[in-house]
């Protein structure tokens, strides 16, 4: 099928879906000052067409995405508004793209009158079920974003809010201004960046793990990647995992401890540099000291004869610990 024909097919499906969209039109659970409306929309592509990318842009609340084994996308939108007029201005739109992605976008439409909306009184939270094979992209403003059970990776961005990635395969990119990033059972390249916020990684396996945090701690368990790059300006790193022969592991903090505990079936080569602080390495590593004007602690060593896993550990002010298990 041609690209144009394919997008048209999706467009038809989306249009027909939106006709019967509000399955549960309105629920008045909260006081009248805070109306809540729940809408459920199910989108089915035409036969033989796969939804490859689900692109979500919700600057009005949280987004949660879960993969399922069907070819449809279902969207639960929970809207909150102070009154009916404002509620009608809260929109969730579905836009098919000629390239194949499905875009879900929320907005607060301009009203006919210029009456101001009270601060914090409008909100849209989305829960989206998507085919597992679809790649997911989501952007929120002040809200949480989470993805679970998808097989083609995700790109998640929030200005302020937690990011949660669970049971995901494929490359994952996360970015936040402030908030905690949690990764659990991620199989693929991970690229995470936060200004303020901790990161917690449990069972991450793939080619690459890159994490950059300005202020926060990074804790990782059961990490097995070939290329690891972790940087923190203010905060400590504690990582446990398995080193791969020929892998490269760079862990650095400007102001904080670097604590790495890795097992390795092959040899390891280590360079550790602490400008002001101690360096603790296993006894089998040769150790020497460099009395330069900038580096006050330096240690390096290699153990084993095969292709080594290379570790580069740095801190300006803090302690470096490398342990094996």
């Amino acid at each position: 099928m041609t690209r144009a024909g394919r997008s048209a097919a999706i467009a038809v499906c989306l249009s027909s879906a939106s006709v019967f969209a509000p399955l549960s039109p309105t629920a008045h659970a909260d006081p009248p000052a805070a109306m809540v409306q729940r809408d459920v929309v199910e989108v089915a592509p035409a036969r033989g067409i796969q939804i490859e990318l689900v692109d979500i842009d919700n600057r009005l609340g949280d987004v949660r995405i879960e993969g399922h084994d069907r070819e449809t996308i279902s969207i639960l939108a929970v809207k909150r508004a102070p009154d009916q007029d404002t509620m009608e201005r809260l929109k969730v739109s579905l836009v098919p793209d000629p390239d194949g992605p499905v875009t879900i976008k929320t907005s607060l439409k301009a009203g006919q009158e210029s009456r101001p909306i009270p601060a914090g009184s409008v909100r849209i939270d989305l829960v989206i079920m998507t085919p597992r094979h679809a790649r997911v992209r989501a952007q929120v403003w002040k809200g949480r974003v989470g993805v679970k059970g998808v097989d083609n990776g995700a790109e998640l961005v929030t200005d302020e809010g937690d990011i949660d990635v669970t049971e995901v395969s494929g490359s994952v990119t996360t970015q936040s201004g402030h908030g905690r990033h949690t990764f659990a059972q991620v199989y693929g390249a991970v690229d995470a960046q936060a200004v303020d916020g901790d990161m917690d990684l449990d069972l991450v396996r793939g080619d690459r793990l890159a994490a950059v945090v300005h202020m926060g701690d990074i804790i990782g368990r059961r990490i097995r990647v070939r290329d690891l790059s972790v940087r923190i300006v203010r905060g400590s790193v504690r990582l446990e995992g398995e080193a791969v022969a020929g892998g490269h592991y760079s862990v650095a903090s400007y102001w904080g401890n670097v604590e790495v505990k890795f097992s390795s079936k092959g040899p390891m080569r280590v360079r550790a540099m602490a400008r002001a602080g101690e360096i603790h390495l296993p006894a089998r590593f040769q150790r020497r000291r460099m009395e330069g004007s900038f580096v006050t602690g330096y240690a390096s060593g290699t153990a084993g004869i095969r292709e080594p896993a290379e570790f580069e550990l740095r801190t300006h002010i803090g302690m470096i610990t490398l342990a094996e298990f």
Partner: protein
Amino acid sequence: MTSCRDVDRLATAYVDGELDDRRSSAVRGHLRVCASCAERVEDEARVRELAAGLGPLDPPPSMWRAIDAQLAEAEIGDSHRSGMWILAQRVLDVARGNALLVGLASSAAAVFLLLWLPGGRGEAPQRPAAAIARAGGEARPGPEQVVAAATSACGGARTHEELLLCQTHESDRRYVDAIAELTRAVAEERASWRATDAARFDAALRELDHAAQIERVRLAGQPPSAAPANRDSLHDIYRAQLELLSSAVVAGDLSGAAPWRGAP
């Protein structure tokens, strides 16, 4: 001879009219022959003009409360300090006005550190240890606390528009503060860089600064209701700045200093 680097350093003071006649004339002369610097200074001037055109913004009452709370916290912290610490601070206050005394104190501190650092006595220095304790979560505020603080900073907003405006400022401030902190760290680190690396780094950073400035000018004319989505490009640039700076400062890696080609 006035170079592009000089103009970059003096641009803000030039636009603000803070340079003396001779320096101002030298900058003007350079701008006549250097199109890129002229463009950069013009951008700076446009930012000033736009900023001057903005109405006064009353900070929300919650912001003053937050400042009061932080002052109170600092004062309570001071009350728990030892007499020795207070005495040391007083000495430092006096020293700040006396360069010779500062030099002597620095020398004494350097000798002390050389004797005391790992290898000297085999102990970690006290200051890092305190910092690490904070990094471990004892004193540094947790993310939840910071979220609460950030939210409360906009708690005084009455309308949705005011809230977006406040949140936007908060968001920008977070990036700008982090960039400023890393820029200060770069100033300390660059002494150990090779001149060619430093030049490449400076050029890359200057490009990002320039891109951010252009973006800020563009945003200055936008209504606050459009703020979150319109901020994406600026935040992409800020993130690229953070990436460049932290890579150089934290990991000592200057290889990422490449020309800015826009957000992916």
